[in-house]
């Protein structure tokens, strides 16, 4: 039995462009078989017994298998003129959908998993940053995050301090804002939209909204797929497989502030699909 809090959220289930091009996607959401297809020119999501509501946003198809508790979040920066929107494509990962989001929020692994790209030894220290659960929007935010990066983006030349903000606006989606190499003063926006197939299997749709007039689209896609697939084997080997929400289970450090806030936020809202409440 899946909690109504979980059912009433929005989840990504397809890339809009692929469905528009006539592809039909038979897939799974929270253990339910669903299909995403074009019906009379409109993108529809068919659940086991009824059609589910659809929102088209950020180049992806989002659906809610229950009764939507609220609108899907927005990213106002994505509408700024001059941004390149990049659909990176789906990657399946045998892990809890919540672990995929949590990994996206983690900075400390950069030098070890994304070596010489998003981090490098000996620059391993995670400086102090600020985390809050914003009551008005009910989102997790981490701000004033800084980290030394050898190649922060495809368009970056040489290493430097990169500034980040992280945001969790939905249980299985996260968006980060990071220093834009091409336009200092603006943020590049990178998201991961995670489709929970089951509690231990997910499909992840990275997405980007960048200021970069130079890099070919195929290189932008390849760069982000490289980063995400570097994470994939780590995610598939994390134990326990479900995200532990029992505070007695793990000992967090200063660097884990965002992760801890995410876990508390999930617990407070009853968004426990893919999580374990009591240490197994």
């Amino acid at each position, binding site marked *: 039995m899946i909690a109504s809090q979980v059912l009433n959220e929005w989840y990504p289930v397809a890339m809009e462009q692929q469905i528009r091009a006539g592809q039909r996607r038979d897939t799974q959401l929270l253990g339910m078989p669903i299909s995403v297809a074009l019906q009379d020119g409109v993108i529809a999501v068919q659940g086991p017994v009824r059609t589910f509501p659809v929102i088209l946003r950020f180049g992806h198809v989002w659906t809610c298998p229950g009764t939507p508790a609220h609108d899907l979040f927005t990213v106002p920066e994505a509408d700024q003129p001059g941004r390149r929107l990049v659909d*990176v494509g789906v990657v*399946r990962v*045998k892990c809890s959908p919540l672990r995929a989001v949590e990994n996206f929020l983690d900075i400390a692994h950069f030098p070890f998993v994304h070596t010489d790209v998003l981090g490098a030894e000996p620059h391993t220290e995670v400086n102090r940053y600020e985390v809050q659960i914003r009551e008005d929007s009910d989102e997790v935010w981490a701000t004033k995050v800084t980290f030394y990066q050898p190649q922060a983006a495809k368009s970056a030349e040489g290493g430097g301090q990169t500034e980040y903000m992280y945001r969790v606006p939905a249980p299985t989606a996260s968006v980060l804002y990071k220093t834009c190499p091409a336009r200092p003063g603006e943020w590049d926006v990178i998201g991961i939209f995670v489709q929970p197939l089951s509690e231990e299997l997910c499909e992840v749709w990275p997405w980007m909204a960048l200021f970069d007039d130079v890099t*070919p*689209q*195929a290189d932008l896609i*390849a760069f982000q797929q*490289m980063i995400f*697939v570097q994470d994939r084997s780590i995610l598939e080997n994390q134990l326990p497989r479900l995200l532990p929400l029992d505070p007695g289970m793990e000992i967090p450090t200063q660097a884990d502030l965002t992760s801890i806030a995410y876990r508390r936020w999930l617990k407070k809202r009853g968004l426990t699909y893919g999580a374990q409440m009591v240490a197994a």
Partner: protein
Amino acid sequence: MIVLYDYVLSASAYKVRLMAALLGVKLQLEAVDFHPGRAHKSAAFAALNPAGTLPVLVDGDLILTESTAMLVYLARTSCAKWLGGDTAKAQAQVQQWLAFSGRLAASLGMARLHDMLLYPGDINALRHQGHAALRELEAALTERRFAEQDWLAGDTPTIADIACFPNVVLSQDGGVSLDDYPAVRLWQRRIRSLDRFIEMPGIHRLHELRAAPVQV
């Protein structure tokens, strides 16, 4: 400049990037939107490679579409030692492993594409075929160790090792573990410890063999 039409997650493309790096040959990489764009199946790409596969290597008027042929070309034009010994037996053994690498791609490689990029396929059959190939490789490498040899063919690494290496190490991406294959695990560590070795997503450098970084 040699041009390689490339995809960052392709085991076959990595084979060629790795060989070039080990040889010190610079490639001009042209990224192709294999996933999600399927640009390798576009009409424009078919003009270059009618088979619609990646990678493709172009050097002047030479166009190669088979990664094992690219290894031969790179080695022959820069350091022929990588082609293996001169004897009939040594040359044939290298060819044997180049062909074998195709079986790894068709089993372990397809299991990986199934599990990671949602390619269709009978995953149990693919993994079963992958294990069958790994058992053969394990037996051969064990025999080589008994003969006090480290590499698949000859007493130095050859294109045979490079051809087989990527899909073996990436097998875990397709749900096939290397736990039962100790000789294979030792061999892949040898390759990862070669000078000028480069990584790809899912194949990491040997952090633990490098000197600890000096604190600045």
